[in-house]
């Protein structure tokens, strides 16, 4: 008897796909959310959402949120996060302002460079000292909040006035498209993006498949930092000032956008890049709509907090969880 006679194969069972299941719901929920937000404000404000002037405001808002989300997608897909991006943007904005005092063109390298340094510091602390990303970046946020006050000497900094002319739609839309498209390609079609999701899905497996996971986990913090720095620069040319309040809304807006877009906070294989666009738009319309309705800043925070909880409740991937920690 040869070994081949031992083959046993059971018939493949015929199985039909269910018509409607939970993962499908997760897929369409972000779109429904976006439509709901737009519809609500469109009706409530009596059609003020879709005016040329207002749409420009939405783009201005969405620019920051979506570019921020591009960085966040890489972090979240690994199950990491960065709470210091707003504070990073604030420090980078101040650095950009200081650079512009020497020469306006230095604003960009100063801003982005500072962002990268802070991001790298976050990543280093997280990977090297094995401190949870949430704790490490939360601490970083407080440190930066304090640091920026020292940096600005308690006041504000202004760039040379002619720099405000840089704040054109063309520059912003070009920057936006380049970053979103490059992010898309890297996330969905390169080994790096795929490994990010693999780490979020099961770190031990990536380790046992030869992935250099400390480096893999470090990189997204640097990308995020670079993006926060770039946003710091854009904030500078948009508002013409660097203050300790710069970027205060970024963290919550971006995190909400990624979650509302459908990325589970636990990361992993179900993380999809479309979250950047859909979630970013949702948050842009939400913020803009609240402004149209005359909602105050504190009330906005309250609403964002509620949205955050809802987004987590809906996007949280419970499949992997046996015990809620």
């Amino acid at each position, binding site marked *: *008897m040869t070994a081949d006679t*031992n083959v046993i194969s059971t018939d493949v069972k015929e199985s039909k796909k269910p018509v409607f299941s939970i993962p499908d719901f997760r897929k369409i929920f972000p779109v429904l959310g976006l439509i709901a937000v737009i519809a609500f404000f469109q009706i409530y404000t009596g059609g003020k959402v879709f005016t040329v002037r207002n749409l420009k405001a939405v783009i201005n808002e969405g620019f920051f949120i979506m570019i921020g989300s591009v960085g966040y997608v890489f972090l979240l897909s690994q199950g990491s996060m960065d709470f210091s991006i707003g504070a990073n943007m604030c420090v980078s904005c101040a650095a950009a302002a200081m650079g512009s005092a020497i020469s306006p063109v230095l604003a960009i390298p100063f801003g982005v460079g500072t962002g990268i340094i802070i991001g790298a510091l976050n990543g280093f602390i997280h990977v090297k000292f094995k401190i949870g990303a949430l704790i490490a970046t939360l601490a970083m946020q407080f440190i930066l909040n304090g640091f920026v006050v020292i940096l600005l000497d308690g006041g504000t900094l202004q760039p040379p006035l002619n720099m405000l002319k840089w704040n054109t739609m063309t520059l912003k839309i070009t920057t936006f498209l380049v970053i979103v498209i490059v992010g898309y390609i890297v996330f969905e*079609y390169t080994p790096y993006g795929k*490994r990010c999701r693999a780490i979020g899905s099961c770190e031990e497996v990536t380790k046992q498949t*030869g992935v250099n996971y400390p480096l893999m986990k470090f990189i997204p913090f640097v990308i995020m930092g670079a993006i926060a720095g770039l946003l710091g620069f854009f904030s500078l040319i948009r508002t013409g000032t660097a203050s300790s309040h710069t970027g205060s809304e970024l963290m919550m807006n971006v995190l909400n956008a990624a979650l509302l877009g459908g990325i589970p906070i636990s990361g*992993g*294989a179900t993380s999809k890049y479309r979250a950047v666009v859909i979630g970013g738009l949702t948050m842009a319309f939400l913020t803009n709509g609240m402004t149209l309705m005359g909602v105050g800043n504190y009330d906005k925070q309250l609403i964002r907090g509620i949205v955050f909880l809802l987004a987590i409740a809906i996007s949280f991937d419970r*499949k992997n969880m046996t015990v809620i920690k």
Partner: protein
Amino acid sequence: MNQQELLFQADDMYKSFGITKALNNVSLKLRRGQILGLIGENGSGKSTLTSIAAAIQPADSGKMYKSGQPYNPATTVEANQAGVCMILQEKGTFDQLTVAKNIFIGKEEMFSKNGIISNRNMNKEAQKALDHIKASHIRAEMPLGVLNFEERKLVELARAMYMDPEILIVDETTTALSRTGRDILYEIMEKMKKEEKSVIFISHDIDELLEKCDTLTILRDGIYVDTLEKEQFEAREIKRLMVGREVADNYYRTDMQSCENEEVILKFDSIDAGSLKDINFELHKGEILGFGGLADCGMHDIGKTAFGLLKPEKGYVATGDGEIVKNPANAMRMKMAYISKNRDQEALMTASNIKDNICLASYPKLKTGPLVLPESEKKFVDKWADELEIKMQNSNQYVMELSGGNKQKVALAKWLGFGADIFVLDCPTRGIDIGVKSNIYNLMIRLRSEGKSIILISEELSEVIGMSDRTIILKNGKISGEFAREEELTEAKLIDYMM
């Protein structure tokens, strides 16, 4: 015996997980003083049925009776009180707690005085429970984390037996047990039988079932197939009923040739690593090198060390050309593959789909320029999923939805696709039904004939003997014997070297 009183009965049980029908109108009868074996391939519904009886999960529909009364426990505590206790296939204990706290989990009030729990009394009582099952070598005050898998299973057994159950359910536990552990379990089963209590015993080991059980109930794909009494037991017939067609007795290698190629492909040079002490061996091209021993003999550390996951404190692992293996990335450059014993935690991303799992090791070769295009991924996955006959709806299906055997096929497809020359397989057939088992053995035979080398680590001695060109037995982290492939090599002969 048929006139004996029915102790437990389950009628028309249904249970579905999504689209998978885990139980499809299954009924089961258990008499007093009976050891009932449940057998079936993976995914046949054995664990589902018994875990419903132990109230670990609810049935979709169906009725259960105990001693003639309707039996509908809502929680495991209620099931325990009704006298039904279950030892789980997977880990059912808490690492951070002591043995005693594990035994009395949920029952701490027994030792409470004015709201304060007396650890001393608890430890004393727990030690009694351990002594009772003759596992006195485990001390009640030990933290569970220091125990090995077998000892943890014994703690679970002590916990179950402390409740003095009328029905003990043992789910696929013996694979984790050494001979001593098995003897403890068998003795308990016999004792329960004498006391007119009952045992439901689940195992993949047919010989064990034939020897220990009075009756065997066979399930297949969630459907009840047949029940056989002791006098009807016949291994071949049982296998046929399990898979639904004729199966050959022997699915190991049938040739008695050992590898004659002397080309060294991997080498362990005086290695101390983890529990290993002074390990030396050479793996040859086209050789299956088997490692066996007791559960804690250190054989799993061989695999980890070979793949660079465990750094040797002394000595080194090197390929034939003298290149030293430093880490997994390094090992992969030398065309090595490793599949951990802990399949669901370490070898597969169960929350990802089949495609991502199979491609993970091979992105560098799937690239077109800097990009991995969906078409090349799809082609790659289809090819290897097909090659291994993975049963799936499509490659976007989540791995967690697959049966144990199909999961293992995904893990193998990943490394076959990667194009490994050296396969380090740690318990590749653990908890896998015989159908897929024989697929895996055939694959190993094929790889061997293609000149690939395999390190086979297994707790099943018969598998090591049956498949290996050379068998190395480990004992307490040291090599205690090395044996060439030959007809006369038997388990009985090797056991002396194991203990």
